[in-house]
Each structure stands twice: as structure tokens, then as C-alpha cells.
């Protein structure tokens, strides 16, 4: 970035413009394990500052990279071409909660958990619950269309964004969507922006849909002998016409991984576990718990544990919550993928992953949101064996190919970013890529917004 641009940015942001090596380095990473040094960082406090920065970037042709909490797993906020990181950390106000219309209006830097707490004060509920919700921001969730455990019942971020205010890559300010329960006027630009990974516009304000807070929650932990039984039980619960608010599967590799670091009170023959949660009015929770338990037993559960109070439910969640910390103990590096397959294809995918791990002599730990067919596949790498790394990379490509063959998607919630760019065309095809590029040009004619993401030829980055 040239000196003139820096001077102009200092005029816009004052002491909220930083370009010391230390400040730049602290915005060079996210959770992917890759680093790219930006030229500078700025902290806008309102949409006008964002607009001015993006207009300047168009004039001086430097990249602008929107960034929330930097908690992504696909590199969506990494400044792969340098440029200016625009952090939403100071745009963090919940502007309003409207109980009459079940709406919230927020700035992009609001932490998701903060919005949930604010909504709870009105007995309302913002359902999306990505694993990073305690520190991840709404803006980041919108950029990546974050999911979470409750997606099986409540859907993902996209399903709760009614309207947006954004500065497009062109520097133009746009308002999209509605502040009403429905609206069908014109193209759905809101949905275009949600999940666009900050490549089309910088979201400066969001109108979000809220729901009434469920009155109660019940949890079941079912233990199975193998992955097949558990993944068939997932389909069984859906066939029983019950929609749980979470349905998390932990396969044998995940349980073994936790067993190595935490004492687990599980029968020896446990080879797979399914955690199911239902919510709603107390009578419906009670009857749904009965229905789920019947289905679980019908599909071969050797034991089903149940809890409806806070501490009891927390005990049942212990296994699921222990997986991520335990992963680190078995290998320092993990290739963390988030494939989704149709629910009916889950048993086949789980069997395929077990076979692949054995065939390629790899540790592959699988767990995740089985209720919507979303599996977090973690290919573990010791970090020192180059042959192991080669086999792991090849395995990931094989997994993606199988996922697409089964009618699934290579990313359910992490996004493409730089990590999945090499495989993007595999899923959307050359025409899909071409149409998307034309859309990108309409929003961001000079290509200044978050360049080097999603498509491979511009990314120049491989895994």
C-alpha cells in the first residue's frame, strides 16, 4: 500500500488506523493455521467510514478485507494479497430488539452470544449457534453463513437474515431485504450477500429474525456398538416425525480420542454415540423425548441416558464438548473439514470414512451435526511425516469427491475461503464458477473486496 493511501486512511480513521508490524501481524491469522500480513488495519465505527475506505480502495486499487473475530476455518478473512483489514470490532452495538415484530437490528461486530443474551431478556431467541458463538461475530456469521448444532431444527444464519445494509465493493451503499415477516420484491440480494465471504460487500448493519424462546429442553445420550447403527438411528428419528434441536454424532474414532484424555463413564462396547436434544413446551418435550428414545432403542442403542435439568444435560454433553480439546492430544495438526451429505447417505459416508482411514493408514476423527448430514471430518497429522501429509491431503480430496458423488457439499458451515478453493469447481462446475464471477464483477467491479478467495486461479494459494 502506497504512502498516499496510508495518509488518506489516517485522515479517515485517525488513531483507529494502524500499520505497525505488531498490529499488522495480529490480523494476519485466523483458525486455519495460515498467515498473510496485511499492509494496515483500521477499525471503523460506522458505515460512512467503511464507505470512505472502500471508495479510496477503488481509487487507489488496494485490497480491503472485512474481518470479524477471525475465527474462521477456511481463511475467509486472511489478507492473501495484503491490503487493508477492516475490522468490525468497534461496530458492536445491538441497535434494537423489537419484541412486537420479532426483530433485532445489529451492527456486524456484535458477538453472536451477546445477541442471544439480549434477545433472551425479552424471552426471544436467535437460533444460530456456531461453535464460535461466544466470540465470533454476527458479521462473520453472515459472511460465512455460519451453522451450528441447532441447524437441524432451526436452520442456519441465512434463515434469520431479513435485511442488510452493506457497502458494496464498488463503494456504493445498499439496503437489501425487508423488515417484515415476508417480502418478494426483486432479486434476493440479501441471500447473495449472506455466505459471500466478504467478497461482494461489507455488511454494516443487519436486520435479524428472532423466535420465541423455547420454554424447556431435554437431552438424550444414546450409546451404540457401531457407527452404522447410530447413523441409521438418525434417519429413524426423522422418520418418526420428530425434529430435534440438536443431533450430534460421535464415531468410534472420536470416542477413542476422548477416552485417551478424559475418563468416560461408558460401557466398554460403546463404538458410537448420538446426542439428541429437543426443545419446546414441557409437554411436547416430554413426549418427543419418549419418541426419540423409542427410535434410538429400535435402532440398537445399548443404553440411553436422559436429562432435563441444566447440570444433568451438561453431563451428557461432556463427551461431545471434550472432542475438540482431545484432538490436540493425539496429533498437533488436523485437516478440519465440514462436509454435508444427504441424511440418507450418512451410513454410507460413515462407512466410507472408516475404510479410508484404514486403507490410507490415517487417523480420521468424525463427529458433528448428523441431524443435517454435516460431519466434521478431522484428518489428523503428526506434523513431521511428509508421506503422512501427502496421504492426508489425498484423503481429503477423495472425501470431497465422494461427498459430491453422494449429492452433498464440501462445506456446510466453514465456507470456501482459501482452504476449499482448489475443490470449488468440483462442486459447482465451470458454469457455476463463471456465473458467480459475473455476479462478483457486478458488486465489485475493481475486485478490491477480499480478493484471492473462493476461486482457485485468483487465490494462488493451495492447501
Amino acid at each position, binding site marked *: 500500500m502506497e504512502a498516499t493511501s496510508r495518509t488518506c486512511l489516517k485522515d479517515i480513521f485517525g488513531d483507529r488506523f494502524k500499520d505497525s508490524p505488531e498490529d499488522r501481524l495480529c490480523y494476519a491469522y485466523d*483458525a486455519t493455521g495460515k498467515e498473510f500480513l496485511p499492509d494496515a488495519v483500521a477499525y471503523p465505527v460506522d458505515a460512512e467510514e467503511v464507505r470512505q475506505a472502500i471508495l479510496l480502495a477503488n481509487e487507489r486499487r488496494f485490497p480491503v478485507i472485512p474481518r470479524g473475530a477471525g475465527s474462521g476455518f477456511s481463511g475467509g478473512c486472511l489478507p492473501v494479497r495484503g491490503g487493508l483489514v477492516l475490522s468490525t470490532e468497534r461496530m458492536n452495538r445491538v441497535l434494537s430488539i423489537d419484541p412486537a415484530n420479532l426483530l433485532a437490528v445489529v451492527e456486524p461486530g456484535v458477538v453472536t452470544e451477546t445477541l442471544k443474551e439480549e434477545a433472551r431478556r425479552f424471552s426471544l431467541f436467535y437460533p444460530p449457534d456456531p461453535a464460535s458463538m461466544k466470540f465470533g461475530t454476527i458479521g462473520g456469521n453472515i459472511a460465512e453463513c455460519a451453522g451450528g448444532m441447532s441447524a437441524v431444527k432451526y436452520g442456519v444464519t441465512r434463515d434469520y437474515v431479513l435485511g442488510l445494509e452493506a457497502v458494496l465493493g464498488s463503494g456504493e451503499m445498499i439496503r437489501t431485504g425487508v423488515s417484515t415477516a415476508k417480502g418478494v420484491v426483486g432479486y434476493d440480494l440479501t441471500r447473495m450477500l449472506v455466505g459471500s465471504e466478504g467478497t461482494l460487500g461489507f455488511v454494516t448493519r443487519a436486520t435479524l429474525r428472532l423466535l420465541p424462546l423455547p420454554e424447556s429442553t431435554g437431552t438424550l445420550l444414546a450409546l451404540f456398538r457401531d457407527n452404522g447403527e447410530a447413523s441409521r438411528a438418525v434417519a429413524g428419528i426423522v422418520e418418526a416425525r420428530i425434529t430435534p434441536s440438536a443431533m450430534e454424532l460421535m464415531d468410534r474414532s472420536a470416542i477413542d480420542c476422548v477416552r485417551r484424555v478424559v475418563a468416560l463413564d461408558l460401557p466398554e462396547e460403546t463404538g458410537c454415540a448420538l446426542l439428541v436434544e429437543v426443545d419446546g413446551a414441557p409437554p411436547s418435550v416430554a413426549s418427543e423425548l419418549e419418541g426419540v428414545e423409542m427410535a434410538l432403542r429400535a435402532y440398537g442403542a445399548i443404553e440411553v441416558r436422559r436429562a432435563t435439568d441444566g447440570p444433568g444435560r451438561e453431563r451428557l454433553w461432556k463427551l461431545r464438548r471434550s472432542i475438540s*480439546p482431545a484432538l*490436540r492430544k493425539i496429533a498437533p495438526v488436523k485437516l478440519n473439514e465440514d462436509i454435508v451429505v444427504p441424511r440418507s447417505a450418512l451410513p454410507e459416508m460413515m462407512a466410507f470414512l472408516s475404510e479410508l482411514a484404514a486403507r490410507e493408514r490415517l487417523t480420521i476423527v468424525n463427529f458433528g451435526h448428523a441431524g443435517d448430514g454435516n460431519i466434521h471430518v478431522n484428518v489428523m497429522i503428526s506434523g513431521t511425516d511428509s508421506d503422512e501429509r501427502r496421504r492426508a491431503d489425498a484423503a481429503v480430496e477423495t472425501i470431497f469427491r465422494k461427498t459430491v458423488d453422494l449429492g452433498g457439499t464440501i462445506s456446510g458451515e466453514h465456507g470456501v475461503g482459501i482452504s476449499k478453493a482448489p475443490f470449488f469447481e468440483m462442486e459447482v462446475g465451470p458454469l457455476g464458477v463463471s456465473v458467480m464471477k459475473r455476479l462478483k464483477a457486478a458488486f465489485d467491479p475493481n475486485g478490491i473486496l477480499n480478493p484471492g478467495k473462493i476461486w482457485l486461479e485468483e487465490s494462488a494459494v493451495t492447501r
Partner: protein
Amino acid sequence: MIDRELAEKIAACVKCGSCRAVCTLYPERRTEVNVARGKIALLESAMAGEVGLPACGAIPLGEERDAAVREALADCLLCGRCERNCPNQVAVEEILVAGRTRFADKLGLPVWKRILFDEVLPSARALNAVRAAGNAAQHLLRKMPTESGLHYRFPDVAGLHGRTLPALPPIGFVASLGKDEARAGEVMLFPGCVFDLVMPEIGRDSYETLKAAWGEVTVSRDAACCGLPALASGDRAGAMKAISKNLVAMRAAAPRSIVFPCGSCLKMFRRDLLNVIPTDHPLRDAAEWVAERCVDYATSILDSPLVRILVPAPAAFGAGSVGWHDPCHLSGTLGRGEAGRELLERAVGRGFGEMKGTDRCCGYGGTFNARDYPTSARIGENKISLAIQGGTSTIVTACSGCILQLRDMAARVSRQTRVRHLAQVVRGLLPA
């Protein structure tokens, strides 16, 4: 810590950002350099001899860059919340302290810290001399009565920001012990320099209550600072000097247990001691012997027969008006908060109520309070305001830094809020 070990600890940080959710400082600053992963990234780059990483393009470290990284590492309260919340169990505190040590060795410490850590804190005589000098000088300041004792309000100039500190006493707790007092006993009290020299009444209350609990109690007449301030600033030599003096005295007294009314001092002896003293050091055996015997004040009283005869004084406190503040080191790092809570509940009965924001850091952070008092004060004022909102009018805790900070903050926010040490509450209930 050798660099290979440090590099391994650093590598455990995958920069997921979960440290942002619980960082005490982050809400005040809202920049990445304030959270653990940012500081760890900076230290990692400094260890590589450059700022930046190979893929980023490196910027060689010069003196200016070194100083900037050092400042970033120093700008932390070491409350440990990030470490406890980390899904990968990254040893953040160890990493930051190792980083501070690295820069202290490379760039040296400021003169005032060198004198403080190397000359004053390791010496009971020097500590007493400073107390005496302070006692003489403080008459120039404005006295300020507070609910929790006589304090001095510093002028709002020269970076003092109108802070309130307790009056330095004419004599410290240890010096006040009679010739035949505290010579021998199965239990040893380590009051720490604040409860000895700044708030000797708390040292005395700790001593009297432990005596009521266990019979005779030993106190070293030559106790030095626990060494934590020096260690946290990266001065391992200064820390070793203080630790060595204490270890020799503790081993010689051969007590069954050593009781700490201050959570931070306890953390130094229970957790940090064995990291600081190398396995081949002549004092290593003594250190292991001592570390095993260190216990917090509440646990010691709860384990004693005294607890059975303490009669709660409900009349003295309104229902739910007495709250427990979790000191970061005692409750968080050492996990001893429940003992403090239990003892307090036994002591005040229905007067006890869980305090709103009980586990929030008070904002003191040792030298952080001196480094950035306005931020430290904002964190502390929020803490007091939250406590008041929840109906707490008396805050009880067991850490010297927390008491200094909470009393100062109470003087800023609400002079009706009382801040007391657990030992003060327990002493009030001793049978006549």
C-alpha cells in the same frame, strides 16, 4: 524454559480466538494485540527473529520492534481466564511470562523495577524501611475515611488519577508480634508483604484465627515477598532471590502446613515455584517439600475444629448482602474458590449471597494497575457496580491485590461498599 519447550507450547495455540470471549482486557481495547492469541503470535515471530511469518514477508526485529513486542506482552493482567477457557489448554501464562523473561534478559528492566525486585522485595528489612518511609511521607496526602478503614486519596495529577490506598501503618504485622509469639507451631502463616506491611490488621486477623483453629502458629520474622511480582515481570533472578529466602525459612520451620491468606502468594508457591526452580537446583527438594504443604486460608480453617464452633452472625448482615469475590489466582488458577465461599457462608449464614460478576477479574493485575491505571480502574469500577446491582454491600475475598483494588474502586464508586478479607469476617465470630 528453553526455546524448544516454549515453541511447543506456542504451537498448541491454533488461533481459534476463544480467548477473546473471556479476556479481561479485550472489552476495554477491542484490538487483537490485547488477547492471548495476538500476544502469542507476536512472541512466536519474535522468537523467529523477525516480526511476520515466512508466508507474510518478514520484518527484522530492531530495538524499536523488540520494545513494541515487549510492551504487548506486558499489557496483560495474567488473570488466566483465557487459559482456563482454551479448548487446546494452551499454557498462556507460562508462555507470556517466558516471553517477558526473554525481553527482560535482552533489553533489561526499568531501573525502578530492578531496584524493587532485586533489592526491596527480597528483603524484610528493606520492605520495612519502605513502609516506614511511606508512613512518614503520607502525612502530606489527604486522609479519607472509608467504611473499610483509613485511606489516603492521592491527588489527581502526575498519573496518580486520584487513587486511594490504605494508610501505611507505623508498624507491620510481623514486627508487631511479641517476643514469644509465633515462634513455633505445626501451622505456619505466610502473610505476604501486603498483609504484613500495608494492611497488618489482616495479617493479625489471619494469625489470630489460625491460632484459634490450630493452636500455636509459626510466622517467619524474615519473610520476603513471595516473588510473584518479579516473576510476572520477567525478572527470574529477582524472583529466585525472594523465593530462596522464603524456602529456607519455611523448610527450617518444618510445619505440617503453610497457610496463605493471599491467593496470589499461594499460586506462586503451589504452581509457579516448581517451574522456576530447576530440577538440579540445591533448593529443589525444599521447593517440592514446601509446595506440597501450601494451603489457602479457607481450606485450612475448614479443615480445623474451629469451623464447628463458628456461630454465624446473621444480624450483622442483611440477607444476601455479603458476596464472595473470586480472585483469579485463588479461584481460577488454583480452583480454591469453593472453599472460600463455603467458609464465608458458614460465617455469615443467610447474609451470604452469590455476588453478581463474582468471577470477573477486579482489574488489578499486579503491575498492570501501575502500568495502566485508567483501564484497571474501569474494569474495577464495573466490577463494583455489578456487585451493587446484585445487592452485595460487603465484598469478601482472600487476595491482597484484589483487596487493594476493590477498596480503591469502592472509594470511587460507592463508599458504602465494604471490602473485607475472609479472616476479618472469621475473627469477628471467634468465641470470646
